[in-house]
């Protein structure tokens, strides 16, 4: 299993989510992060003084998938994440040793599958 960590623009997320959903990967997690890279800072003005802001808001997307699916996910992210301007972000792939589904306690790669079948909501 691998974990894909991508730092992307906010507006890139929705198309990525939709395509992954279509491809059968509904499961992912995002969080708000601030990043610095080659992108430049912006300067705010307030009552004559200035405040420079070197960090830009990004979305961090985390998704653990089976080895076999890594390329699909990465390609989807790269496809929708690109604007061509500095600040598009990065994608990293890291190893994962084990995975568990809290609801059932099951372990192993199979828990990463999408189970199209309905299930009681909660």
């Amino acid at each position, binding site marked *: 299993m691998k974990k894909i960590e991508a730092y992307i623009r*906010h*507006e890139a997320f*929705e198309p990525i989510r939709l395509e992954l959903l279509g491809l059968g990967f509904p499961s992912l997690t*995002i969080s708000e992060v601030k990043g610095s890279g080659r992108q430049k800072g912006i300067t705010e003005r307030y009552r004559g003084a200035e405040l420079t802001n070197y960090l830009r*808001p990004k979305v961090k997307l985390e998704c653990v998938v089976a080895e076999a699916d890594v390329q699909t996910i990465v390609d989807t992210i790269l496809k929708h994440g690109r604007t061509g301007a500095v600040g598009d972000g990065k994608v990293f792939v890291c190893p994962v040793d084990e995975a568990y589904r809290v609801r059932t306690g099951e372990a192993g790669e199979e828990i990463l599958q999408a189970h199209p079948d309905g299930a009681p909501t909660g």
Partner: protein
Amino acid sequence: MRRSLLVRGLFVGLLAALLVPRSALAQADPKTAQALTDELNNTWVIVAAFLVMFMQAGFLLLELGFTRGKNVGTMVAKILVNFSVASVMWWICGFAIAFGGDAVIAGDSGFLVGFGDTVAGAPFDGAGATFFFFQFAFAAVSLAIVWGTTLERIKFVAYPIYGIVFAGLIYPLIAHWGFGGGLFAEIGNGVQDFAGSTVVHLTGATGALAALLLLGPRKGKFGPDGKPRAIPGHSMPLFGLGVLILWLGWFGFNPGSTLNTDGSRFAEVVVVTNLAAAAGVIGASLTVFFRTKTLDVGMCGNGAIAALVAITAPSGYVEFWAAPIIGLIAGVLVVFSVYAIDKLIDDPVGALSAHGMAGIWGTLSCGIFSSPRLTTLNGVGDAGLVYSGSLKQLGVQAAGVGLAFVTVFVLSYATFFLIKVTVGLRVSEEDEEAGLDISEHGMYGYPEQFIPSAELVSYGAAPQLSATQASATKSTEVNA
């Protein structure tokens, strides 16, 4: 007088119609002393009524401040719906029951009142409308007080139902007894409640108690150990603004209760009210500071409210010097009361303490501090203990308090009980967790606090990306 008014009205009306600039109206023929007297009184009272109406904003903000961010939208819908239901019910029957004649139990004229109708033997005119609205604003305040104990878990539907009963029957009854020439005038030489520590505030707090007993505490208020836990409200700024607006509103509430401008007495009431409120803040602040070594912000505000509630009854009966004493005691009282009550039941805003306990204290305080001068001037009851050395008036005041409490509690408990067994009084545990905004109103009151901005962005919500271009267009680029 009516006809001369009509004639003048007509004349002015025509001018107004042609709407030549106001300056020309300076030629309007002089009014009679009678007209000037009535109109000056009414102008003062209507302005006071506006201040009292504005207290709705104060109650909204105070409750918002003490609420969590997931339950704020519902407070807004609540105050609007309650105020509206009360407005209509007051017109339908509330006003009639309260002021439609001075029978002992209830009035009997003025239902669905209209211009020219005979109410309590007098034709209903501009003066009547002034009084109608001033008294309505009080009814609305009393209703607003009820809900302080019910925040964050009550079903919305309970508001209009109880509101109809409260504004249409419960409050009008008490108002009739206390303000409308009813029951309270029969006790001794009359119960002294100048602007309604009992009639308005205790009545509201009693309804709040009834609701609370049937509702129970918020999920998580009491730990498994049964110890109360802090559920901090989400915004002290909104709370603070609310307190200041209420303080302002009280300058209409008490001074306006003179119902006229005679001898500019309203100003004495203003000073008395302000001195008491100030002493209340000081009393509560010192008490909470010495008890916890930190100055609880909410308590400073509760101190002001409690003192204002306490001075409401005596404001027209006591001299300046008594005001700070009454207020100070109310301020100390409210802190201990909040702490004590918080151990047993869940009153998020402290309504039982600030309006209930303080309302009782304020009403009783008349029995102690009412001055002979003002008692005579008002022609109600006798001077208080410190002047008369007699406990008589204190007893009369206690009787008034008891009567109001029992009546309101019984009627309110019955109403809430019926609501509970029919439509239900409390939302599901899930909805309480989710917050009433999303569960009852379909949207958070602070959407950006609860909806992931990455989902809002597709709707153009997140400033994120574009902060980039913004920089390009408007801000100096700084190399990273």
